[in-house]
């Protein structure tokens, strides 16, 4: 069974590598980017062998913990179309969950993420090669940590696969995501304010040490602290941490087994009956003047009814919640809320709108044929999507901007409003144009919105980065003038007009050029967005 599944995975990987220059280029780019991102962490872990024990312990735990979090979060965002090894595919075959688990696990290890995780793990083992007992503890901790990390996405996706798409599940995940993200943000804010208040490197080390001690007793930190425990000669702590790590691993395995067993017997998604919709809604009355308006109106409906799009709205709405909660948290802890990090949320959010808009056409899947046979013009499609999306997104961005300015002080209004307007407009324009050129594979309609895999992942990362870089380039003048407005009076008057002008120009460019591109290439675009079974 293991050999069979690994062979299948190998064949799929080979086929995805052979699948066109664009796909290969995207994969290579993502591999290089993620290697460049991981390498510093590996170097830090290796160099740790020469540093102080306390620092080494703190950094190992923090990096290890971050790795686990990455394994929870990244699969949620790197959505793709490769569900060849999804459990429901095996539902018709007479196999038991316990027979599938080893094969699915090993097959899942064949991927960039697992490779990088093992790289980080090996680096930590090298870093802790201080003496034989410490080395052995490091090796054990690394194996426990890497296996736990790579198990996480299996458990999550299998547990989700049964009930995914059902309404209650979506509400619960949405809530869980909010709670989780809020927790992390509050911790980060508290940590950063603690570090910034304390002076001197000793205080920083103390803060890191404190954080590591807390995290080492959590399921995701326990494995990584083992070598440090042994090096410090603290056998009791080592036993305790080892137990936490082992129990975590066992619980994950048990959870996966139970979820897989359920997924094998209830393979089909629970039908998500939304029930009847109301006739003659506001959308009908307000969005029916032209093709553009009609497309925008449909988009508005889809942001409520399409789980995949709902997920992106959810994550947008996280931003104001995070800002609010972290301000409240920091204030409650006696700190002073505010600062640049709070103000940056609005332009960052605006920047992220670009990729989301670029991906939107892919979510239509083959239903896009309706736009082609009804002769919707390219610019109407582009502008309709942009308007529908903006109706949802722009109020959120505005809210976040105003929250930041109110908390931090009104003299930040002009520079950050300029930056937000310029970046948001540029992202929407670039997203409109890029979305007409490259269509990223996304999970098909009605499927698991967290559908993970290597299929569309690399390409979506590349398109996102491209959108963001281009948007930043276009909005750079407005950002610079905005920054100058702190000191120069002319800039105070020029910043907003410049921002509005670049935003408007980029949007016009994106709609017109993207529309022309669609008009010339509708059939090809239809083929690209159609989910390949």
């Amino acid at each position: 069974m293991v050999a069979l599944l690994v062979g299948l995975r190998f064949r799929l990987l080979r086929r995805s590598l052979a699948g066109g220059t664009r796909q290969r280029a995207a994969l290579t780019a993502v591999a290089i980017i993620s290697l460049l991102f991981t390498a510093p962490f590996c170097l830090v872990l290796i160099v740790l062998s020469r540093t102080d024990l306390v620092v080494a312990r703190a950094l190992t735990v923090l990096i290890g913990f971050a790795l686990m979090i990455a394994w929870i979060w990244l699969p949620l965002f790197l959505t793709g179309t490769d569900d060849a090894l999804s459990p429901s595919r095996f539902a018709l075959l007479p196999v038991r969950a316990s027979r599938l688990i080893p094969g699915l696990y090993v097959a899942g290890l064949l991927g960039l993420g697992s490779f990088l995780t093992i790289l980080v793990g090996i680096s930590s083992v090298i870093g802790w090669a201080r003496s034989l007992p410490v080395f052995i503890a490091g090796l054990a901790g690394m194996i426990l940590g890497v296996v736990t990390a790579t198990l996480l996405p299996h458990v999550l996706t299998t547990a989700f696969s049964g009930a995914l798409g059902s309404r209650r599940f979506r509400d619960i995940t949405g809530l869980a995501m909010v709670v989780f993200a809020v927790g992390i943000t509050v911790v980060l804010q508290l940590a950063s304010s603690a570090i910034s208040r304390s002076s001197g490197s000793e205080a920083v080390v103390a803060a890191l040490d404190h954080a590591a001690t807390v995290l080492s007793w959590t399921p995701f930190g326990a494995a990584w602290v083992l070598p440090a425990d042994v090096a410090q000669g603290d056998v009791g702590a080592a036993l305790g941490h080892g137990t936490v790590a082992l129990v975590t691993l066992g619980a994950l395995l048990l959870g996966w087994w139970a979820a897989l067993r359920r997924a094998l017997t209830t393979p089909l998604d629970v039908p998500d009956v939304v029930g009847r919709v109301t006739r003659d809604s506001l959308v009908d009355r307000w969005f029916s003047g032209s093709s553009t308006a009609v497309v925008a109106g449909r988009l508005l409906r889809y942001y409520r009814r399409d789980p995949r799009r709902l997920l992106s709205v959810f994550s947008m709405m996280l931003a104001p919640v995070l800002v609010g909660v972290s301000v409240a948290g920091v204030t409650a802890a006696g700190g002073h809320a505010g600062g640049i990090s709070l103000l940056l949320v609005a332009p960052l959010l605006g920047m992220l709108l670009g990729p989301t808009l670029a991906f939107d056409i892919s979510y239509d899947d083959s239903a896009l044929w309706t736009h082609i046979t009804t002769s919707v013009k390219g610019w109407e499609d582009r502008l309709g999507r942009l308007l529908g999306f903006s109706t949802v997104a722009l109020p959120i961005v505005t809210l976040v901007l105003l929250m930041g300015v109110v908390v931090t002080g009104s003299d930040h209004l002009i520079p950050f409003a300029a930056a937000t307007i310029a970046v948001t407009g540029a992202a929407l324009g670039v997203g409109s144009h890029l979305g007409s050129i490259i269509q990223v594979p996304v999970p098909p309609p009605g499927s698991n919105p967290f559908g993970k895999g290597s299929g569309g992942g690399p390409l979506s990362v590349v398109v996102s980065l491209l959108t963001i870089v281009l948007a930043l380039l276009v909005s750079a003048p407005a950002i610079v003038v905005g920054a100058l407005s702190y000191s120069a009076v002319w800039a105070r008057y020029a910043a907003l007009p410049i921002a509005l002008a670049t935003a408007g120009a980029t949007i016009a460019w994106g709609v017109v050029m993207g529309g022309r591109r669609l008009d010339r290439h509708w059939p090809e675009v239809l083929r690209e967005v159609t989910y390949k079974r």
Partner: protein
Amino acid sequence: MGTTLSQAGLFRLSWRAFPSREWEKVFTRQGPDYHLADGRVFNSAVPALRVTDLVKSFGDKRAVDGLSLLVEPGSMYGLVGPNGAGKTTTLSMITGLLRPDAGNVEVLGHDVWSDPVAAKALIGVLPDGLHVFDRLSGRELIRYVALLRGLERRVAETRADELLSALGLAEDAELLVCDYSAGMTKKIGLACALVHAPRLLILDEPFEAVDPVSGDMIRQILKAFVTSGGTVLLSSHVMEVVEALCDSLAVVAHGRVQAAGTLDDVRQGDSLTDKFLDLVGARHLESESLAWLHSS
């Protein structure tokens, strides 16, 4: 029957919507002969649909290999062929959803690929195997298509109502299309294809997954449509459907037309199924193969 009345109302609208001079063009049978590459000659000024030497390859495979069709106005034309014959590929190229490697498609004199807006305005399409915007309710979907077709909001809403009741979907009009059964989805697709009163209906497997009651309803609607001067091109691999409904047909295999003409021309006294197997090349199961399937 209430449904028949509303159907008639629907198609009367279409007569008025279409300028009478256009109709003269459609029904005047004069003009040059058309010589196709396979030697056939057509004489018709403006056929409802003229497909000339269509070619489409996917990689090494030639899905459509020099296919030509001529569909007279007012006919119910069947496109039959085995699985993989190239029916869907052909229909996709006719409707502007797939770019042909070579060949022409003309709808009532308008080239689909050089004059797409005029051609597409005349066609109503029901594809097979493509999604619809299924997070809209049935009514919202018809309305969406109607408004994109450029209909007035009031007209769109009236026609949506009429189509929903004509197709027996009035009760489920407010249900999301993703919760529809396969047959209901087919029917809502047909409603979307009809809503702008097209002159040419192109239907890919319109009867697949449709129960007998709904199937009969669809047949009635299509007959009324043809009687009022519309033209239907439908694909099917069920010979009985085509034999009972269509007046002309083309048998397609290996991406080419194997035989075309009126029903009687093609049948030549045989049943359509026998003739079809004859044309396509029937295969017989050898007596020894799959012997392990026989229990006992």
